[in-house]
């Protein structure tokens, strides 16, 4: 399976600031997704990162709060904007590769704490 890295692995931020999380894959993938996992909760899909175009957001998530870029087939960023303590979560990117359609593999995650 594809090797996925995320940066940063963790961060502590002040409310009102923004943080950009990077997701890098070692091979081209068909699809990339961003998920959020709030404390004690399961994974919730934020958006599908579309290569070269605007991301597709799920209900309850908006571009102004979570701008996403995907400039090519191996890289994506998620920005958490104007953060509040409620944004404290683990943020995960996942990918679907050409070799294993329908199976999503997850990056190592970014643990974010907003004070």
């Amino acid at each position, binding site marked *: *399976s594809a090797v996925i890295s995320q940066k940063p692995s963790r961060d502590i931020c002040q409310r009102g600031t923004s943080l950009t999380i990077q997701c890098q894959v070692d091979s081209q993938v068909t*699809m990339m*997704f961003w998920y959020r996992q709030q404390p004690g*909760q*399961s*994974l*919730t*899909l934020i958006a*599908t990162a579309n290569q070269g175009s605007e991301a597709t957001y799920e209900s309850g998530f908006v571009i102004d709060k979570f701008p996403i870029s995907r400039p090519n087939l191996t890289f994506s960023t998620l920005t958490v904007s104007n953060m509040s303590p409620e944004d404290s979560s*683990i943020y*995960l990117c*996942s990918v*679907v590769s050409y070799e294993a*359609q*329908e*199976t*999503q*593999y*997850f*990056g*190592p*995650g*970014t*643990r974010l704490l907003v004070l």
Partner: protein
Amino acid sequence: EDKVVQSPLSLVVHEGDTVTLNCSYEVTNFRSLLWYKQEKKAPTFLFMLTSSGIEKKSGRLSSILDKKELSSILNITATQTGDSAIYLCAVNAQGGSEKLVFGKGTKLTVNP
């Protein structure tokens, strides 16, 4: 609304025990069901199931799908402390978009 329900939510066993984790779903356009193991942050892929009645097996772990009952089970035999984790069930339910709907997970604790 698509829904995935896992039970039990938590389970504490002793090493050597066998456990069965349950996952049921109510979704439109079912494509596949996936099991993941989450120990720290990243869920690691265990199985993908698409057909009823065909068991997938990997070492002490096995899983099977029942499309008639809209459910799946994950079995772990001869549990070890390293099996302690949250086990997540997810369903690919949007036919072509690859979006996954996750259950809340089962937290398994294996005591020595």
